[in-house]
Structures are given as C-alpha cells and as structure tokens.
C-alpha cells in the first residue's frame, strides 16, 4: 500500500488489472444501459416529435448565440493581440461516456469509457454540457477514473464572474453534492446567486468554464472566514455524456506572441467575419 501511495510502483499492475477489469465494468453497467435503451425503445412517436421540435429550437437558439460568441471571440482575440498576449479561447474536446460510479460512498469518482488507448492522461480536465465536471486521476487502457469537483479531496480554483474575486472551491466534507468556498475573508464581495467560473489557476482546468453558483453566504463576526456554499453547474449525478479537454489549459500569465503572425491571423479572421456579415 505504501508502494502504491507514495511511490507509484503499482502503476503497471494497476494498468494490467484495469484491462482485466474492463469487462466487469461493462457487465456491472448493463442494468443501467438496458434500462435507458428500453426507455428509448418504448417512447411514443408524439414524444419523439416533441423532442425533435424542442431540440431544433434549441439548436437554432444556440446557433444564434454561437454567432454572437464568434464575433465576441474575434474581438477578444484582437484585444488580446493588442496587448501582445496570446490566449486559447477554443479547445478541442473528446466525447466520453460515464460507465460506472465509484462504489465508495466517501469518494466522488466516476469511470469513463476512454483510456490511455484514446490518449487520456492524468490531470486531464473533464467537462459536461453545463460546466466543469472534474479531472482524470487514474488511467487504464480502456477506461479511466475521474475525480469530480464535489469530492472532498478536490479543490477547484474559481473566480466570481461578476467581479473576478478569487476563491478555492472544495467538495463539501459532509457528503452532499455541494462545494464549500474556502478561506474567503468576510470583506470579499461574494453574494448569493453569483456564478463561479474556473480561474485557470493551478493549470489543470481551462479558464472561464462555469463551475458553480453560490447558494448561501454566511458571515459571522467571530469567524475569520465566511461560510459560503455553491451548487455545481454540471449535472454531476444525472449525466452520462462528458467531454475531455484535449489540450492542456493555457497558462494564466500572458505569453508573448509573435506579433506579426498573430496580427496577420487577426486580419484574416476579421475579414472573414466582415464578409459573413
């Protein structure tokens, strides 16, 4: 056990056993999978039509927002280029599916169906459609364990999107699926309803992804720190589909870019947007 914990000698054994364990996970997941596929089979035609219409509408709305976002991205990139800083605002993702949940009630981890064969690495950030989900902690050939942001041993560096106040969000220690903001002094400006986004510090998570929403703030004069709880935006327990961020998070500090190069890129992308408009 010491060899495993302190020195990582057991990594190879873990890999091999992980390979053997893959069919087990598949088998254990069968009830849930059969249940959901039965649900898909026995769905009525009108429901499908309704869903189709709803999805179309959603797609249209997101397209429109995407158009807006694109122009904002371009503008943002141009401004960043003016500061001669380069920042990645788009990230490639690899879709994956959750195939099991850790049976240990005290650790919040899920197993996904992508492993080292798919290029998954330890420390890779995992996203969900609504926000940040967690990071990969253990990679096996065809599957890997993802530590969720709600785990008590996991701390996510966040900032308030409204004013950029920074904080650390730790998975709550008493076992529910919320986050505690640690070491927030009472004078920091954080209110109920504030949305917390990843700050990109710690260089594990990409910047600016939604993490959580503040649900309660308690400041008592006797305590050195405020007690703040936040609810994760990601549907940590009800989703099956997640995304792995392919590129490592960009460094938080500005990196000097080759000015002529990025400038030229900007020109061309601006031109394309102009022509699109």
């Amino acid at each position: 056990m010491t060899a495993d914990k302190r020195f990582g000698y057991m990594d190879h054994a873990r890999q091999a056993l992980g390979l053997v364990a893959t069919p087990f996970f598949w088998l254990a997941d069968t009830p849930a999978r059969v249940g959901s596929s039965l649900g898909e089979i026995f769905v009525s035609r009108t429901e499908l039509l309704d869903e189709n219409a709803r999805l179309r509408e959603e797609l249209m709305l997101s397209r429109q927002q995407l158009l807006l976002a694109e122009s904002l991205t371009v503008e943002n990139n141009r401004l960043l280029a003016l500061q001669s800083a380069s920042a990645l605002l788009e990230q490639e993702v690899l879709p994956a599916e959750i195939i099991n949940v850790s049976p240990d009630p005290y650790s919040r981890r899920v197993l996904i169906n992508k492993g080292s064969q798919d290029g998954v690495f330890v420390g890779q950030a995992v996203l969900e459609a609504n926000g940040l989900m967690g990071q990969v902690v253990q990679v096996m050939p065809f599957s890997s364990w993802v530590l969720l942001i709600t785990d008590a041993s996991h701390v996510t560096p966040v900032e308030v999107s409204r004013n950029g106040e920074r904080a650390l969000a730790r998975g709550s220690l008493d076992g529910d699926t919320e986050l505690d903001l640690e070491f927030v002094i009472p004078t920091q400006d954080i209110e109920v309803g504030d949305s917390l986004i990843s700050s990109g510090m710690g260089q594990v998570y990409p910047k600016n992804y939604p993490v959580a929403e503040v649900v309660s703030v308690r400041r008592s004069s006797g305590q050195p720190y405020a007690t703040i709880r936040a609810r994760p935006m990601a549907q940590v327990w009800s989703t099956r589909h997640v995304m792995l961020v392919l590129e490592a998070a960009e460094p938080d500090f500005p990196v000097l870019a080759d000015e002529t190069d990025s400038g030229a890129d900007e020109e061309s992308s601006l031109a394309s947007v102009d022509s699109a408009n």
Partner: protein
Amino acid sequence: MAGSVLFNSLIVLSFIVAGLMAIVPLPDWAIYYRPEWVALVVVYWVVNNPERVGIGVAWMAGIMVDALTGSLFGLHALGMALVAWLALRLRLRLRLFGVFQQASVILVIIGLQLLLSQWLQFLFDLPRGTNMMFLAPALTSALFWPLAWVLLGGLVRTLDLN
C-alpha cells in the same frame, strides 16, 4: 475428485458475482448500506471449505475488489485477509451456530474489517467518512448473510459437490 474442477469454478464464479455486486451502481440513498458481498463469500467458503479457500485466496479476492473500485492497492486485500483469518479461527464454532447466530458473528467480523480499512484510510489520508456511518455495511452484510448462506449452500448441494 471428479467435481474438483466444477467446485473450483463455482468458487471463482461466486467471487466474480460478488465483485460485480460490489460495483453495481446503487441509488444515492443506498450507497452507504452496500453489503460487503465479497467478504460474505469469503466467510462462506472459509467456514465450509477451508481446504480450498484460505487467507491467500481471500487476499486475491481483495486485490480484485481493489482493482474494480480503483482504491489503494492492498486496502481491501488486507481487509479480506483479516476476514478470512477471523473466519478460520471461528469456523468450528460458526458451523455449530444457527444461521442467525452466525449473522451476529458476521456483524463483528465485517465491523472489524471496516474498522481496519477506516484506520488505513486515515493513515494514507484517503477520503473517508467522518461519522460512524462507515460501519453501516456491517449491519446490512449481517442481514444478507442468511441469503448468502442459503444460496451458496443450495448451489453446493444441488451440484452435489461435498
């Protein structure tokens, strides 16, 4: 000894099924009460067939659970070895007990296993419960012991292995 291969495969199969039961996703309210299926199977075989299943096999079964749950290597292995050792010490008495009296001993054995793993989790600074809920599986394991006893005993008798 014609049934030897059959018997050994029944043992392996029982451990595989127990391992599956140990990782099948449960609803949120139930995860604290998941019985220690593998430990129950270990106790059954150690009590009834100590010549086939001993501390070594129990250790291997524990390694299997470690691999399946992604926990620290050796955590469950050590626990299962402890369970097997206790069951070996108590096996002659356990065989005389009625099944519900056995269940009370199971409660203690699995409680000790959980206590050991709680200590180890503390020692290695792993996520763990902060209250006494970590002992809940001992209770449910004791409740499910008669089921395991009847099921495995029935299988052995049906296949006419003893």
